[in-house]
Each structure stands twice: as structure tokens, then as C-alpha cells.
């Protein structure tokens, strides 16, 4: 075992120990396991929200996209910022309603707001479907990190299995409590590593940022701006809109909102977290620095660029430190996703079907589902081939379909009916699923549109159809205005 692998192994063992230690003195009810008793203060909510940003997606996916695609990677910097601005107004009313009704999941929120258990189940299913590619990309990241950092001695397949087993074990034991403390360690480590790499690599190889960008622009004209077609400005606009609106619609992001102790936390985080986004610049710098130094990676391989360049630049022990940071960026969000998916299936899909089952059985089922979901994700990870960014955008295309229903439910008078909302979500998700599975283009679905419409992110296009369907069905099913029940919040 080389020193890089040793350091990575130690970091995994430490993550497990922290997860176990965090469990002490807490009786694991469902509310404790999933939202940690709704008792986290500002700093931990901050870290959990930040944990949403700094996943393998940003670390490997962000640098890989900058390396392989250039300018389109900029969208990753833009959407989080807009999502936080939205959060200032969006999250406090969600939190208030969740606290008042003692909700532990996003699905409960929909079921209560629209007085429709069926909608709750639908939302949970959409959530699980969206979470799978998100979990797959974390496992894919783990595989890349461990196999590249072992200089080939551990296969990517073995690394994916080890990583998945680690995440599953510690989530089953400690739930959200373990996640929070590992999030703290992860954030400090990843901040230090990313800022160092992003500053050092351009300086070391090119002499400075401006020199690096001039060199890239000379070697690959047009690479640093949006293309005239394909991943064009229109693609950027629709992708940023899709991902900014979907940011808090992820089941795990939505239930992370419930962990706050008071609503002011969100308003303050909305000021600070956008600045934290700037760390992404350094992630891009890593990818850009790799373009001329480790050329030739294509397709799914672009996600390897940061590590390939690191191995070429540093001693094995330091590659180990980078690897350890990378492993944590996959383990922590991977755990959050697993807790969310398991809770969704046990509590929001199965429980409404068997209402007589006591709560401790539901908690037990949720824990039991963890290895099952991990196995499904490992299966898809090993099928592989897609880039990390493509996987996350697929998840977003699904999960953002929930946004119109949430926003409308927060209005004083909800313009949507439950039938309308269900129709909208079904239409949106069906369009995304059809295009994803058949690789059809959007214009082939609606042939009267100009070819330029294909540059619109498919998730955003589906969102428009979603809103149209929801509005039409709501109009048709709207009860007489006088008898409409008014709900608080």
C-alpha cells in the first residue's frame, strides 16, 4: 500500500469513528435519525447547506467540466448564488410550516399542503428517482479517487464497492448526527485543498491566471466563452434557471431546512453562502490548468483531470491528502442522500400504504433499506460512462419539477389544485424520463419548434410543459371560489 492510499484509508476510518461517536446519548427515533431532533444551530445548518455544494460533483465534476467543456462549467458558479437569494424568501415559510406540523420530510409537506396523500407518495417517488443519479455520481467520484490515488493498484470497481459499504454502514448506525460532524471535517479539508490547488497549479505551470487563460485561449479559441450552438448562452440561461429553482427541491436539501432551530438562520446563511461559492473558481482553475498539461481525456474520463494533474505534480503523500478530501466530499453527501432516499421509501412510500405499522418499524425499515439503495446505486455506477455533471443535471431535471407546486402552496391563495399539481409533475417527469431513456431531442417531441430550442436544457423545457399542464388542469378542477378552503402559511 502506498502512502497516498494509506492516508485515504485512515480518513475513511476516521469518518466512521466520528459517525459512531456522534450517536452517543441519542435515542434514535425517526425524527432524530432524519432531522437530528430539529436542534441544529446556525453553524451546523451552515455546514449542512454547504455540504450540498461541496460534493464530488464540484470537486471532480466541476474541474472535469472546466477541463473538458470550458465555459459551460461557469453555470456551476452561477446557480448556487441565485438559489441562495431565492432561499431568503423561500425557506422561512417552508420551515415555519414544517415546524408547526412537525414534518420530517418533503413528501409530508406536499401531502399536508395539498391535503393529498397520493401527491405525497408521487413526490417521494420523484425524489428517489432524482437521488439515484446523485448517489451514483458520489460513488463514481469515490471510484476515481481511490483507483487513481492508488496508482492503479486498486481497481475502480473495488473502490466503488468499498466506498459504498463505508457510506452504508455509517449511515445505518448514526443517521444525520454522524453526517453533521463529518461535514465539519470535510469542509475544512476541502477548502484548504481546493484553494491551494487552484492557486498553485496555474502559478506553477503558467506563471499566473492571466497567462494561463491567454495560453488556453490561444490553443483552443472559443473554449472560454459559450459556443454559438450546443452548450450556448441559451443552454447556460436555461440550465442556471433550472438548477437555481431546483436547488432546495432535493429531498435531502428540503429536509435539511427542517434541521434549523430558528428561521433567521436561513436569512443569514443567504448572505454568507453565496460568497462561499467563490471557492468554485479555484475548482475551475484546477480543471483549466489541466487542459494543456494532461491533454487527451475525453468523455467520462474528463472527471479524472484534477487527479491526473495532481499525480503528475505532487508526491504520493500529498496526493493522499487530496484523495482524503475527495473521499470525504463523496462520503458526506452520499450519506445525506442515502438517509433521504431510505426515509423517503420507508416513511413516504411504504407507510401511507400500511398506516397501522408503528413508528419504530418504519425507522427499522428505513435503516434496512440503506444497503439496498446503495446496491442499486453501485449497479448504475458500474454501468457508467456519463460525466458527473451530466448525472447531476439529470437529477435536477427530475427534482425541479416539484418547484411550481411548492411556490404555489406558499401563496396566500394557492392557484393550483392537487389534481393540477399532480398532472404538472407527471408531465414534467415523463418528458425528462422519455428524453433521457430514448435520447430523443426536445424538438422531435414538439416539431413545430425551431432547432434552436434544442439548446434549452431539457429539464427547463419540461418545467414549462409542467406549468402549462398544471395550470390547465387546475382551471378545470378548481372548486367554486367561495368554498375553497383557505390554509394558513
Amino acid at each position, binding site marked *: 500500500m502506498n502512502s497516498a492510499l494509506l492516508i485515504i484509508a485512515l480518513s475513511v476510518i476516521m469518518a466512521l469513528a466520528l459517525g459512531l461517536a456522534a450517536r452517543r446519548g441519542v435515542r434514535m427515533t425517526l425524527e432524530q435519525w432524519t432531522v437530528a431532533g430539529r436542534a441544529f444551530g446556525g453553524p451546523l445548518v451552515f455546514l449542512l447547506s454547504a455540504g450540498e455544494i461541496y460534493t464530488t460533483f464540484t470537486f471532480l465534476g466541476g474541474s472535469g467540466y472546466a477541463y473538458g467543456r470550458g465555459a459551460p462549467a461557469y453555470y456551476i458558479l452561477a446557480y448556487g448564488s*441565485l438559489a441562495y437569494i431565492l432561499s431568503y424568501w423561500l425557506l422561512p415559510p417552508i420551515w415555519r410550516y414544517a415546524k408547526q406540523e412537525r414534518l420530517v420530510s418533503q413528501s409530508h409537506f406536499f401531502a399536508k399542503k395539498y391535503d393529498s396523500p397520493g401527491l405525497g407518495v408521487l413526490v417521494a417517488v420523484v425524489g428517489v428517482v432524482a437521488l439515484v443519479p446523485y448517489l451514483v455520481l458520489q460513488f463514481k467520484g469515490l471510484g476515481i479517487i481511490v483507483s487513481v490515488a492508488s496508482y492503479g493498484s486498486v481497481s475502480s470497481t473495488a473502490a466503488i464497492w468499498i466506498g459504498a459499504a463505508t457510506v452504508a454502514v455509517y449511515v445505518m448506525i448514526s443517521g444525520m448526527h454522524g453526517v453533521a460532524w463529518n461535514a465539519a471535517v470535510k469542509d475544512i479539508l476541502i477548502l484548504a485543498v481546493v484553494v491551494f490547488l487552484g492557486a498553485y497549479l496555474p502559478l506553477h505551470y503558467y506563471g499566473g491566471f492571466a497567462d494561463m487563460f*491567454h495560453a488556453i485561449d490561444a490553443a483552443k479559441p472559443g473554449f472560454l466563452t459559450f459556443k454559438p450552438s450546443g452548450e450556448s448562452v441559451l443552454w447556460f*440561461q436555461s440550465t442556471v434557471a433550472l438548477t437555481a429553482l431546483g436547488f432546495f427541491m432535493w429531498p435531502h436539501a428540503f429536509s435539511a431546512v427542517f434541521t434549523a432551530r430558528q428561521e433567521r438562520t436561513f436569512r443569514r446563511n443567504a448572505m454568507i453562502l*453565496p460568497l462561499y*461559492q467563490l471557492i468554485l473558481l479555484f475548482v*475551475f482553475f484546477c480543471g483549466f490548468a489541466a487542459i494543456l498539461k494532461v491533454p487527451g481525456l475525453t468523455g467520462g474520463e474528463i472527471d479524472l483531470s484534477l487527479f491526473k494533474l495532481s499525480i503528475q505534480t505532487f508526491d504520493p503523500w500529498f496526493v493522499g491528502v487530496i484523495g482524503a478530501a475527495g473521499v470525504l466530499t463523496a462520503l458526506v453527501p452520499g450519506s445525506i442522500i442515502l438517509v433521504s432516499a431510505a426515509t423517503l421509501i420507508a416513511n413516504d412510500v411504504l407507510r401511507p400504504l400500511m398506516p397501522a405499522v408503528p413508528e419504530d418499524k418504519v425507522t427499522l425499515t428505513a435503516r434496512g433499506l440503506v444497503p439496498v439503495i446503495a446496491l442499486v446505486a453501485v449497479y448504475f455506477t458500474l454501468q457508467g460512462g456519463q460525466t458527473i455533471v451530466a448525472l447531476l443535471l439529470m437529477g435536477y431535471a427530475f427534482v425541479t419539477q416539484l418547484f411550481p407546486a411548492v411556490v404555489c402552496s406558499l401563496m396566500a391563495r394557492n392557484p393550483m389544485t392537487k389534481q393540477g399539481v399532480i398532472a404538472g409533475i407527471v408531465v414534467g417527469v415523463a418528458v425528462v424520463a422519455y428524453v433521457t431513456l430514448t435520447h430523443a431531442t426536445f424538438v422531435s417531441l414538439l416539431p413545430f419548434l425551431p432547432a434552436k430550442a434544442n439548446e434549452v436544457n431539457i429539464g427547463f423545457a419540461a418545467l414549462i410543459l409542467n406549468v402549462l399542464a398544471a395550470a390547465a388542469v387546475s382551471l378545470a378542477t378548481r372548486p367554486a371560489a367561495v368554498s375553497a378552503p383557505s390554509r394558513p402559511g
Partner: protein
Amino acid sequence: MTAARWLAVLPFLGILVGTAFVNQVEPLVFGLPFVLAWIVGWVVGGAVLIAIAYALDPANAETAAGRDGEGR
């Protein structure tokens, strides 16, 4: 409050609309391609605008006085 909401619209315009007009590499700003620097500018500007909104928002002053604050 309403003024704060209008402030919050600016970053959306800057990023979602403005980017179409600045899709160019030169001139580099702080060593960054111009379009990237434009986006970075709005990320920073967005945080500043939210800070202003936070200061103007009476909801934050009330909770600060009424509660024992946030556990740290």
C-alpha cells in the same frame, strides 16, 4: 421590504440576461475571462444585496430582540 425584493431581482437579470451580452474572453478582469468575471461579479454583488435586504428587513430585528439568540 418591497425595495429589498426589487434589489434581489438584479442578480437574476445580471446572470440570466446580462451574460448574453458579455460572452467574450477579452479584456481579462483580475486574470479571468470577461464572461467569467461578469458572473463572479454578480455572485459577490448578490451577497451584498442580500446583506442590504437583511439589514432593511424588520423581521430580523424582531427575532433578535425577542429570542435568546442562536445556540452556538
